[in-house]
């Protein structure tokens, strides 16, 4: 992750004009919204969309190629892959959101503290972030899994902590930029107290890009979590988590392509759709530049 370019920001009172924003929606973006919408509904109300119980074993129907009855085929235990992809959305989305939330919380604390504090504290926090940076995310995640054992919580913590330093550095940069901006200086000149300036001007303005980070981060966290689950270090089977499905289907890759393709597509589409939406939000915030 590169250090983010500092976005010039205006006063916090600027609001995004939603109706105006939607006018600029391209078909690709509409598709992205549709995909994310589908998976969000899947996560919230899977029973509404899934034709079968995702755990329902039916040995006679094992490894069936896609048919009308099972549009995405069945797995080695005869479970319906479509239903599993739909139910898997909940777990994957939960891991993605929770990991990103954790990551941003850590990043906020570190980034804001570094940005607002004096040179010495800033230096200490920066070195700390750099040390974290030295560990590739996957390695850090592997460390967590080894120490705490595989499972949903470990996965969330591993991905959350692993991706935090990148965000922390971005937030620090943002805080620094806002701190030195004209309107903060003006607020100071007007006699506003420092805590008030921080509360009213610095934080709100520095935090705006977080909306973008959050959107991009969820997609990224889902990919990380799936990757770890694929290595057998995530959620245990028979969970329909997407990465776990990829791992379980790996053995059958030469005989039953749908076991890899279907959950794989779910991961790819969902991550791409979130990225597209994230970029769109980013452009809106930056004043409609393309």
């Amino acid at each position, binding site marked *: *992750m*590169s250090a*983010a*370019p500092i*976005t010039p920001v205006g006063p916090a009172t600027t609001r995004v004009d939603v109706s105006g924003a939607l006018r600029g929606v391209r078909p690709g973006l509409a598709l992205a919204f549709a995909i994310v919408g589908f998976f969000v509904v899947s996560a919230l109300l899977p029973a509404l969309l899934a034709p079968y119980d995702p*755990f*329902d*074993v039916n*040995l006679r129907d*094992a490894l069936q190629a896609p048919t009308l009855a099972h549009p995405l085929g069945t797995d*080695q*235990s*005869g479970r319906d892959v479509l239903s599993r992809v739909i139910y898997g959305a909940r777990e994957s989305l939960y891991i993605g959101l929770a990991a990103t939330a954790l990551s941003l919380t850590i990043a906020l604390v570190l980034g804001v503290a570094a940005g607002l504090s004096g040179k010495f504290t800033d230096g200490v926090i920066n070195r700390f972030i750099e040390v974290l940076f030295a560990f590739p*995310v996957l390695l850090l995640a592997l460390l967590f899994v080894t120490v705490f054992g*595989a499972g949903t919580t470990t996965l969330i913590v591993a991905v959350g902590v692993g991706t935090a330093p*990148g965000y922390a550095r*971005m937030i620090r940069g943002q805080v620094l930029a806002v701190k030195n901006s004209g309107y903060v200086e003006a607020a100071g000149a007007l006699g506003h107290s420092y805590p008030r300036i921080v509360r009213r001007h610095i934080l709100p303005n520095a935090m705006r*890009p977080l909306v*973008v980070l959050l959107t*991009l*981060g969820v*997609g*990224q966290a889902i*990919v*990380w979590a*799936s*990757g770890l689950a694929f290595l*057998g270090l995530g959620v*245990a*089977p*028979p969970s329909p988590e997407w990465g776990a499905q*990829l791992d*379980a289907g*790996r*053995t*059958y*890759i*030469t*005989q039953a*392509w749908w*076991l*890899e*393709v279907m959950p*794989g*597509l779910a*991961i*790819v589409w969902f*991550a*791409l759709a979130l*990225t597209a939406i*994230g*970029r769109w939000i*980013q452009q809106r915030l930056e004043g409609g530049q393309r």
Partner: protein
Amino acid sequence: MRTPKTLLPLALLAAGLTLAACGGNDSASGGDPGAAFAGATPVKGGTISYGHEQEPPCLIGGWVQQAYIERQFADSLVSQVKEGEIVPWLATKWKVSDDQKTWTFTLKPGVKFTDGTPLNAAAVKTNFETWLNPKSLNPTVDAYIGEYYKSSKALNDTTFELTLTKPYAPLLSALSQGYFGILSPKQLAKGPQVNCEQPVGSGPFIVKKWNRGKNIEFVKNPNYNSAPANAKHQGPAYVDGITWKFLGDQTVRYGSLTSGESNVIYNVPTVNWKDAKQKFEVQQYITPGRPVTFSLNTVKGPFTDKLVRQAFGYAADRKAAVESAFNDVIPYNGNGALSQSTPDYDKGLADAYPYDPEKAAQLLDQAGWKENGDGVREKDGKKLTVNLVYPAGAVFSAEGATALQNIQEQLKQVGFDAKLTAATQSEVFSGKYSTPDSYDAITWYWTSPTAGVLYIVWRQNLKDRPNGNNSSFYNNPTLENTIEKANSTLDPAEQKALYAKAQKIIVDEAAAIGLYTQTTSLASEPKLRDVWIENSQGEPVFHDAFFAKEGGDS
């Protein structure tokens, strides 16, 4: 701001995976793939590239994976052929005293270890003493003969005498396994550390180098003169060596065979079995001993009640679950005590605990576990939750895990809330799941060429500690005495009856519920001839193997 850089490559990777998966099914024409090379005369030279699965922590030791490796560089005293028959190997003949306690082995003269030292009676004696020395203990050797061993003596250069504390009928079968390979005392004197990586035997191959995580390089022993009587030829191996590769991922392993990277592979993925049969020479060995079973915890939790254990057996269609998960390649083994290929196996128990959910429900009712509306049964406010632990990965295959998931679903139907816990190889070997607190049921096996394995698995205590192999923690003096008596009986009919009685107790008490057999399967390219699987443990044998010339003299 940009998209985080890591996302794109990962997304591409996922997309690539997606494309790679679209290969579809292969459909080769039928026929015998090896027909063109049948009857070819042996040709010297070449190195066999062999794709194995599990990599053990040391090249010698008590795990069956170590026996497979030891077979390549060491010889045992005897060899076992089908039906438990024993033939000469390092020992050309043997006799036993009338009280069945003293065994005298006559050794083949002129056999040398590959470090040049002689393989004589004194060397055999040193091996027995090293196996049973607490500092260099081989746990499997100890499990077989620890309790029976009294002393050993070198009467002269070629006569070795083994004295037992009591008669032990399975002795020769036990000695035929790779764990009992005779190693060079000169090398053994250098300690377990050195012998872990550089053991020296008298076998057809020499360990040249072990590249951990990758492979073992074996080279031919040019002076080999001690092949077992059941070998296809005497004298040195035909090939120059073996590259024994560790390919843990079964898709990769099979791919290495289809792409020509490997000449032969171990454990053919069951999903590729049909394809392999059409393209390669395929052989399968059903491993005798304790099959893969559920050991039910008889001292803690719901399975302390025999009725609940029996209900667990009836609750799931284990046969269908196994056959479906293993694509009908690996056989179901309903008898929870012994694998169907073990001598003295009781066929009458093959259908123990057939699928009968009504009976399971009735047994649970009787045991006081009542339905409460939410699907999970309850007794005294406690839910019928059971923790099923299975050693995943190297010990328990992906297909095995699928079978467990199939069973888990059916257990749910009768009111068990079964949780599956996948234990890693290191967790299993470090003993994390070895106490009554750590599981309600665990899947386990113990490969062995004799029904004498029952004593290893079911006795309550060893001389100085609880028996770690009794993973049901089951204590039944009648069972223990029956097996002990069978082990010391040399009348085959009486012995068979006693082993049968022991199997019946284990099955009736539902201390273990059968699942499937361990197997060794090999798929080799058609031009690689005469690779075979020996009969004590399913160890692959490469001493007779050779690469036939194209268009050989068939």
